[in-house]
């Protein structure tokens, strides 16, 4: 396998972007990444996108988007694994470059979520659950994670206040990220007093509906060194992908995210790293309870200690292991297909030392974790400064 590096990252400002179409958001992010890399030709485009069919009535988007960039003719493919679609696009691009099938790959993620109303958006996200045996009964994504939260609370004593601390921390980080959907300073009480969405999860325990896109460019390490100039070169050292049962009813332990544990194990083994080696992480905080459970599954904290760790500030920007310096899904926003690619963009920016006010000092080894649905799929990637 060839060594693979990230030579460019591109983000746009995320939010409820009424004035922008999917293809426009996507092309802006793609151009930003190509400009950052200093190139204008690629061998392949990968697109992470969960459900353009239901959100905007458009399939076949990889070809549509290649054309939008004036690159019709280039190979293009879409990956889908619900909210983990973006990191699947990254892994597909990584495999292309590592194997030698392609040299330069433009990895992208995009989702246009506000062209449907809230009920239809909730329905569309719900298709990532088991349609016939979960969503049929009226469960929603907040509802599925709420069930896991109930079990985690009963088993480990995790509290609503600990969950709220995750939200407060991620909003504090998002304040420092110009691309974030929300620039809000909130308190524990703001979270606890917000509307209940699915008990015990309040509105401020939930990531929002977001329009957005993100992109990164991959190249063989040798080529990356030639292009880097004075900037640090960021290499992909670990990639793990795993699944779990989609239906919660088929899981042995609802207080654990087994797909995350497996993906982490594989990524750590590939990179020759342990949880203690990681300096900064972007993880899938679609709900506050998911950040708590993910930080446990990644081995940052013992099972049951994710909540207390968040409350004690161990995951803050200046904490023991800073988690979601970008603001995470909670504050930066969660355009589902774009999220996994934006995580890679953030960690690359952190490792390059270009994260400005939200820079984690001395970060040289970073991790991303992106999750599909209620944990039915997960990826973990490890990036390092060469």
């Amino acid at each position, binding site marked *: 396998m060839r060594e693979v590096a990230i030579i460019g990252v591109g983000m746009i400002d995320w939010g409820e972007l009424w004035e922008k179409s999917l293809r426009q958001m996507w092309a802006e992010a793609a151009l930003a990444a190509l400009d950052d890399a200093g190139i204008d030709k690629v061998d392949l485009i990968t697109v992470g996108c969960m459900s353009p069919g239901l959100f905007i009535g458009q399939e076949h988007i990889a070809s549509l988007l290649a054309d939008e960039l004036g690159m019709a003719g280039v190979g293009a493919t879409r990956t889908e694994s619900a909210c983990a679609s973006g990191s699947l696009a990254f892994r597909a691009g990584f495999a292309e470059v590592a194997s030698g099938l392609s040299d330069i790959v433009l990895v992208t993620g995009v989702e246009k979520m506000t062209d449907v109303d*809230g*009920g*239809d958006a*909730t*329905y569309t996200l*719900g298709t990532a659950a088991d349609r*016939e*045996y*979960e*969503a*049929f*009964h*009226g*469960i*929603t994504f*907040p*509802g599925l994670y*709420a*069930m*896991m939260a*109930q*079990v985690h609370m*009963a088993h480990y004593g995790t509290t609503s206040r600990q969950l709220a601390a995750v939200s407060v921390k991620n909003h504090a980080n998002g304040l420092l990220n110009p691309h974030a959907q929300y620039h809000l300073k909130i308190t524990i009480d703001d979270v606890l007093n917000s*509307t*209940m*969405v*699915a*008990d*015990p999860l309040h509105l401020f325990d939930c990531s929002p509906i977001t329009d957005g896109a993100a992109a990164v460019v991959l190249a063989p390490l040798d080529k990356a060194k030639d292009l880097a100039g004075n900037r640090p070169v960021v290499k992909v050292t670990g990639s793990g992908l795993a699944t779990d049962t989609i*239906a*919660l*009813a*088929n899981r042995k332990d*609802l207080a654990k995210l087994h797909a995350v544990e497996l993906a982490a194990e594989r990524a750590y083994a590939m990179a020759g790293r342990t949880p203690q080696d990681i300096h900064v992480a972007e993880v899938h905080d679609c709900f506050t309870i998911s950040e708590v459970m993910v930080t446990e599954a990644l081995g940052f904290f013992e099972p049951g200690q994710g909540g207390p760790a968040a409350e004690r500030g161990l995951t803050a920007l200046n904490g023991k292991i800073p988690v979601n310096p970008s603001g995470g899904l909670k504050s930066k926003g969660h355009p589902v297909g774009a999220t996994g690619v934006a995580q890679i963009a953030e960690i690359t920016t952190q490792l390059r030392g270009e994260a400005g006010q939200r820079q984690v000092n001395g970060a040289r080894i970073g991790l991303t974790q992106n999750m599909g649905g209620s944990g039915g799929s997960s990826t973990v990637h490890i990036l390092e400064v060469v």
Partner: protein
Amino acid sequence: MESPARSWREYPQRYRLEAAKCTKCGKVLYPPRVVCPACHGREFETVTLPRDGHVVAPTVVRVPPTGFEEETPLPIAVVELSNGVRLMVQVADMADPMELKIGDPVHLEFRKIQQDGEAGLLFYGHKAVRD
């Protein structure tokens, strides 16, 4: 709108709670599958699920998906039946949905689950009722 066939083929599970019991290892699968995830056996006999169980993971959905607007707040839970099989079901007939707790004993009853538009299909299945 879903085709009538999509609903019809789920009738044995939704209406009659039919499950598949692996003839090799005895594991009961709901819904049935073509291969047993425990032992990879491929032969099954049809069994009917018991109707009594208890709540394993509850919540109350306050923001509903399309089609459930009139049923919120909606108590819903993963329920473990007395033979160990788990399934997700709504919990019906609760005056105060907030009272739903882990460990609550329940039994399953045949109910209408949802309706596909004003002149569309009616979807039936089972809901849990607290004992």
